C-alpha cells in the first residue's frame, strides 16, 4: 500500500475514532478529555515540506471542528504542532540517521527515548494551546493548568497504547525502493 493511501485512510479513521468513540466517553472528570486524533500529524512522513504539513494539519483539524462545532479551535492547535514538528525532529536525531532511512517518525525510526520526548513535547504544546484558547473565553488558572496536565497525561497513555497495539511496520528504505 502506498504511503499516500495509508495516510488518507488514517485521516478518516482518526477523525471517526475521535468523534464517535473518544468524544462519546462519559466524562470521568471535568479536566479529562481523551484526545488521540493529533497522532495523525505526528505520524506524517519525514519528507513532507513544512508548508504542506501545515495545510494538511489545518484541513485535518478543521474536519474535527466541523463535528465539534468549534470552527478553528482544533485547526489552530494542529497547525501549531505541524509547524513545530520539524524543529523537534531535527533537535532529537541527526538528520542522516532517521530521515534518510525511514519513512515516518516512530519508536523504531527515532529510538524509544527520542520518540517519547517527541510525543510528549508535541502533545503538551497541542493541549496547552487548545486549552489556552478555551481558557481565554472563560475559566480560572487552576482549571487551565489542571486540564493541560491531566489531558496530556491521558493522551500520552493513549498514544503509547496505540503504539503497542498497532505496531507500524517500518521498512528500512533502500535505494531500490
Amino acid at each position, binding site marked *: 500500500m502506498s504511503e499516500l493511501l495509508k495516510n488518507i485512510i488514517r485521516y478518516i479513521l482518526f477523525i471517526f475514532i475521535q468523534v464517535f468513540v473518544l468524544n462519546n466517553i462519559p*466524562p470521568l472528570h471535568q479536566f479529562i478529555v481523551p484526545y488521540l486524533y493529533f497522532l495523525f500529524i505526528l505520524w506524517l512522513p519525514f519528507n513532507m515540506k513544512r508548508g504542506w504539513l501545515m495545510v494538511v494539519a489545518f484541513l485535518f483539524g478543521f474536519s474535527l471542528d466541523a463535528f465539534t462545532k*468549534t*470552527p*478553528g479551535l482544533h485547526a*489552530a492547535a494542529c497547525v501549531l504542532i505541524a509547524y513545530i514538528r520539524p524543529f523537534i525532529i531535527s533537535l532529537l536525531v541527526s538528520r542522516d540517521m532517521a530521515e534518510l532511512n525511514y519513512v515516518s517518525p516512530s519508536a523504531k525510526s527515532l529510538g524509544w527515548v527520542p520518540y517519547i520526548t517527541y510525543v510528549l513535547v508535541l502533545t503538551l504544546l497541542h493541549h496547552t494551546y487548545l486549552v489556552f484558547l*478555551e481558557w481565554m473565553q472563560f475559566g480560572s488558572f487552576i482549571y487551565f493548568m489542571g486540564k493541560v496536565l491531566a489531558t496530556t497525561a491521558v493522551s500520552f497513555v493513549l498514544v503509547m497504547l496505540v503504539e503497542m497495539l498497532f505496531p507500524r511496520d517500518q521498512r528500512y528504505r533502500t535505494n531500490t525502493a
Partner: protein
Amino acid sequence: MRNIFLFIRRYANFFFFLVLQIVALWLLFSYNKFHQAAFMGVANDITGKLNEEYNSIEVYFKLKKKNQELLEENNRLRNMLQENFGVRDTTLFSIKDTLTINDSSRIFRRYYSMPAQVVDNSTSRQNNYLMINRGYNQGVRKDMGVVSPAGVVGSVLDVSDNYAVVLSMLHRVSRISASVKKTGETGTVEWDGTNPLFVTLKDIPKSVQLNQGDSIVTSRYSDKFPPGILIGTVESVATDPSSNFYRVKVRTATNFFNVQYVYVIENLEKEEQLQLKSGIKINE
C-alpha cells in the same frame, strides 16, 4: 526591494504559519458571535448525515430505557385525557365544566411542539451542543425551545435545511428564565462548566425558604418555553454573604448523557411579543 523578497522567501513558512493561525482564530472567535457563518450550514448537513448514520446504530443499545421513558410519558398524558374527567350528574342544574383541557371556547393555542431525534450530543466540553434531525424544511426556526420527556434541554441555535444545532443547557452562554415551583420567585439558570449533572440557579432572594428536592420549572416570562416545564430539583443551597441572593445548585431533570428524543417547541405568539418589546426601545 530585493532584500524584502529575500526576507519573505526566507521566512515563508513562518508567514504561512501566521496566516493559517489568523484564519483559524478568526473563525473561532467570530463563530460565537455570528454563528451563522456560511460554511457551517454546509458542514452541518454533511456531519449531520454521518451523525444520523451513527445514531441509527447507537439507538438500539438504549431502546429498553427509552421505551420505559416513553411509557411513563404516555401514562402521564393519558391521565390528562378529557375522558378521565367526568361531570357529576346533579339532575337539578348543570354547571359548565371549566376544568377540562380542550375547552376551545376560552383557550387558544400558544405553543406547538414537534418531535425530533437527537443525532449528535456532547456533555464533556465546556460548550455543549446537540444536533437534531429536524431543520428549516420541517418547521424549526432559530431560538425555539427544546425539551426532552423529562425536562428542559436547550434552545435552537442554528438551522440548516434538514438539521438543527441546539445550544444545550450545558453551555457557557445558556441562560434560561426559571422559577421556584412552590413559591413562584423567578431567577436565571446557568451552567458553570464543571459537572454536567448540575446547573446553577441565580437571583432567588434570600427571603424564600428553599429545601432540597424543590422543583425548579421554566418561568412565565420565558418566550421560548411554556411555563411549568421541569428544569431540575434543588440539590443544595449556598448563601453568598455579599448579596441578597442565593446560589442554588440544581440537579438537571434531563439526563444529558442519554437524551435521544426531544420536542421542539414553537411559541406561536413570539413575533407579537418581540414586536411589542422592540417598540418600547424605540420610544425611549
